[in-house]
């Protein structure tokens, strides 16, 4: 296999004196969906933000497409077309849906293509009915779709999705996972997905990592991890796989 698109090597991140990531190694190859599962507070979102340079890794390296981006400022990392739909969605509540989407074009710089709007909206028909509405007036599911759509506007080379199913009705969460699968299939979009909803995430992902207390404890194909008893016990609530599927 060629060099991975994203390589995380021995990354350590601190909040003050608290070590949140304790030497994380992780690869995302081009065209893959990779998921990282783990409990609340395991450091998943911290890893996501460390990739984007905020906070910065205090040790280790983050390499994107052969380039060391560990010390690059966040906005320059974004301009390499690493797009993130972050924890909590972070929609601009006082901007319209259209303006939120246009903000997604910034990362593309001079290559920004306004026509991308129609292509993105084709995946999220709900949003096209709401373009003039303020972001803050959308429902949770719509906000999540907007956060993903906004990230897609720059035609990202790598899409980082932080808990897209959090707080959503199971049906809406399923819709979002379907869209991600579709994007990966039709546009060969590379996706790095962080989830607590382990069942869905593992079914979706080509490869998966499990994080516990800031270290990667397991890795394998999505299906492989789904079968492992220790994953089932810890993240799929024992045998209640079917009920776990309905999400939290």
């Amino acid at each position, binding site marked *: 296999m060629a060099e991975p698109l994203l390589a995380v090597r021995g990354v350590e991140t601190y909040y003050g004196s608290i070590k949140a990531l304790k030497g994380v190694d992780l690869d995302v190859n081009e065209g893959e969906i990779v998921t990282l599962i783990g409990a609340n507070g395991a450091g998943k979102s911290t890893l996501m933000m460390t990739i*984007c340079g905020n906070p910065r890794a205090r040790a280790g390296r983050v390499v994107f497409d052969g380039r060391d981006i560990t010390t690059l400022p966040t*906005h320059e990392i974004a301009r390499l077309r690493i797009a993130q739909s972050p924890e909590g969605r*972070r929609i*601009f509540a006082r*901007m319209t849906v259209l303006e939120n989407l246009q*903000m997604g074009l910034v990362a593309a710089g001079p290559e920004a293509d306004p026509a991308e709007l129609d292509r993105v909206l084709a995946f999220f028909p709900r949003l096209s009915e709401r373009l003039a509405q303020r972001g803050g007036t959308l429902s949770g599911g719509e906000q999540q779709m907007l956060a993903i759509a906004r990230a897609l506007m720059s035609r990202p080379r790598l899409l980082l999705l932080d808990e897209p199913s959090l707080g959503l009705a199971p049906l809406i969460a399923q819709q979002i996972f379907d869209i991600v699968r579709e994007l990966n299939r039709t546009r060969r979009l590379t996706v790095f997905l962080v989830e607590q909803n382990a069942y869905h995430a593992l079914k979706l992902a080509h490869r998966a990592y499990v994080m516990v207390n800031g270290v990667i404890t397991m890795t394998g194909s999505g299906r492989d991890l789904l079968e492992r008893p220790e994953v089932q016990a810890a993240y799929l609530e024992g045998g209640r796989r079917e009920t776990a599927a309905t999400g939290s």
Partner: protein
Amino acid sequence: MEVFVQQLINGITLGSIYGLIAIGYTMVFGIIGMVNFAHGDVFMVSAFVALIAFLVLTTWLGIASVTLALFIVLIVAMVLTGVLNWAIERLAYRPLRGSFRLAPLISAIGMSIFLMNFVQVAQGPRNKSIPPLLSGEFVLMGGSGYQVTLSYKQIMVWVVTAVLLAAFWWLVSRTALGRAQRACEQDQKMASLLGVDVDRTVSITFVMGAALAAVAGTMYLMYYGVISFADGFTPGVKAFTAAVLGGIGSLPGAVIGGLLIGLVETLWSAYFSIDYKDVAAFSILAVVLIFLPQGLLGRPEVEKV
């Protein structure tokens, strides 16, 4: 009735100037949550820049057309004041970002004193004046008794303010730059995740605020004909009051607040006592802070997340 209409005209003129300054306060507060106490002095410096530019143009270069001179003076004042405010932000505020909340505030007060003293030393402590220009006026009402007049200067202030506010409004609400500014105002972390250079956007905000203050400074100089090193303080604090009254962070609020403060001040002068006009204006600040802390168009402090 005539007195009222006349004071209305005067008040709108004064209020336009306050509104232009208030935008600088409200934008900077919106984007980095800091009250830039040096903004009134930036306004004062811009009036001096306009004064010098005006004298150079008319006496040395011999430009006779008032309109052309005014246009060039405006551009020069806007550019130089913009550069000044850019430098102030770079030197005095940016290094303190991420420090405790009061640090940039104290730095701004220091910068205010520095600017005031610098101009006092460099330009002298006395009033500087320009020769009167645009001295005509229209008589709107009243033949023999009290005449209601609208001077050419007032029309100039109104037109220039309206044009620049419209241009500024377009910039903030319709362009990618304005979108980036509003995004930084709401969520800097997200803006940077989307590729917005937050530091650069903050710099641009300071430059824009200063450019509008320079328009106000030029108008102030043309309208009153005199300027002194101490003239930044009172209009500055009144414009800040205007920004708070309108709801700090809100751009239309700043303009409406400015107009209201201008009107209160002139009407109070006409009907009560001119000596207490500043008391009237600042009483509003106190009353607003007590009963309507978020201002007329401001957002409540707590937001749903």
